[in-house]
């Protein structure tokens, strides 16, 4: 389906524009005829693992060339205009950090390679922003995954980018670090920067922004505010994994709730199908307390999110 510039996948004041972009690797199509735009503020790029998010972000940053279509950042093709990197930064998903450097050396290196040149004060400010100052002189090879993520974010922030692309930046971070990073991303968006954050977890994106672009199998699945996407998803059941010490009584109690439409039990695990994830999230702890059981794990299963997105793609 072709998009019009007035559809929710476009913004009026676009800084990053994606026009009929496809990318394939041999026979595999990673991104297919995707059109959308991103403007000042924070936009979530949502999709299950393997949806094509990373490929799209790498094309936005100029690391990969579209097989078809075009991408512009502030009106320029990032592949042919290195000056775009004066204001664009990417925080990649993979552990793309130099293990032999310390955290401070990594951020200073990023600063040295910028058009502004090295500025020790900005290095310290970026490290402080992600709360990495105390560990800054440790080798990155000794960092946890969450610390490496924060080091990458600091290395991007040090150059004060106005377009910031972050690929699954919350992977591996603990809840405290996650909250801290989310508040940084929201602040950067509120400052008028174009911030694009990818994630495969809807709840994570929901905490950051209202505007979402969802892709699956390389195609645009949905775009607009999270509420609209949620309502589009309303008739799709979610699958939730729950692990508990009293699986069977908990399943029976949950099935009494209007939002639960099915349950399958597999030892201490159960898979609940619900039409209202929030309601289930609210109800489950109190139901568990009432029947005297403990919930060890409660999480949405990726497969269900993927099926939701696939459903949305089919509906478009």
């Amino acid at each position: 389906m072709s998009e019009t510039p007035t559809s929710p996948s476009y913004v009026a004041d676009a800084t990053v524009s994606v026009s009929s972009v496809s990318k394939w690797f041999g026979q595999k199509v990673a991104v297919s005829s995707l059109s959308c735009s991103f403007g000042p503020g924070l936009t979530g790029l949502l999709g299950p693992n393997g949806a094509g998010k990373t490929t799209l972000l790498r094309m936005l940053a100029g690391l990969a060339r579209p097989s078809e279509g075009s991408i512009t950042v502030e009106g320029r093709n990032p592949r042919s205009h290195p000056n775009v990197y004066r204001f664009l930064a990417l925080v990649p998903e993979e552990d793309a950090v130099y293990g032999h450097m310390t955290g401070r050396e990594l951020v200073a290196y990023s600063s040295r390679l910028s058009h502004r040149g090295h500025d020790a004060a900005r290095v310290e400010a970026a490290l402080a922003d992600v709360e990495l100052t105390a560990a800054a002189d440790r080798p990155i090879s000794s960092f946890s995954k969450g610390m490496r993520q924060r080091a990458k974010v600091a290395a991007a922030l040090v150059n004060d980018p106005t377009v910031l692309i972050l690929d699954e930046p919350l992977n591996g971070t603990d809840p405290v670090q996650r909250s801290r990073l989310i508040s940084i991303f929201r602040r950067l968006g509120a400052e008028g920067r174009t911030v694009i954050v990818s994630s495969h977890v809807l709840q994570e994106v929901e905490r950051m922004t209202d505007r979402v672009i969802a892709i699956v199998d390389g195609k645009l699945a949905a775009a607009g505010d999270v509420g609209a996407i949620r309502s589009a998803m309303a008739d799709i059941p979610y699958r939730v994994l729950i692990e508990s010490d009293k699986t069977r009584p908990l399943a029976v109690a949950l099935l009494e709730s209007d939002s639960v439409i099915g349950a399958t039990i597999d030892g201490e695990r159960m898979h609940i199908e619900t039409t209202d994830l929030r309601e289930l999230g609210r109800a489950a702890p109190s139901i568990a307390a009432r029947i005297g059981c403990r919930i060890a794990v409660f999480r949405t299963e990726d497969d269900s999110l993927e099926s939701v997105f696939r459903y949305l793609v089919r509906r478009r």
Partner: protein
Amino acid sequence: MTPVIAIGKATVGQILPWRRFLGLGALANAPALLVFLVTSADQADEFETFVGITAGLFFGVAMPIVSLVLATASLGDERRDETLSFIALKPIPRAMIALAKILASVAAATAVLATGAVTLGVARGIRTGEWEYVLPLLVAAIVGALVYASLFTPLGYLTQRATLSGLAYVFIWEGAVVGALPALASTSAWRVAFSAFAALVPEEVASLVGDFALGSVVPGAGGAVVKALVVVAVATLLTTWILRRRDLA
């Protein structure tokens, strides 16, 4: 600090950690140890033994392998570790990144090979009292590092089997093919470096040194340096082209 120096410095730190420096240093210094152990001033064929070890082991084995390991890591490690985006997403022309990577490979290879060259010259000096081989060996080591490191740096990005491809060039092409067909000697990097060595040794032994391994390559330090700089320039252009054309890790 300019971006080229910053990238070069970081690359040397990445490709030449202490453990690798010591391992490759042992390889580069093995010919010196051998010269120290097996040659002496009163030996009849002492000079032939020295030149044989120098050409066969230092130039023919240590020089290419040290350069191969370090130069293929210069861009290869970035690709393997997926860190190339860190420098590619900076406002630096790809040509500057290519040049920085090649110069870092050359610097790292020179650092290791220079120790081997100097100790080789010193070993001969201790055993025979002839110290005039230190400088020719050092110059030749730098020429060899320039040529090999420039050749192998783009190779490290082009293929995941860079080490294997490089070894094929060293042992099959330079060793077997050029060994059998001396007319092709100018395609052998270590023979280009050896031609600088042959041109700088004392005049009375220059022809003996040249006959030993040069094939069709004419001894000449200036010519060797010019050839090396041409290889650096071509390799920089090739690496720039690769960085511009290919999707980057």
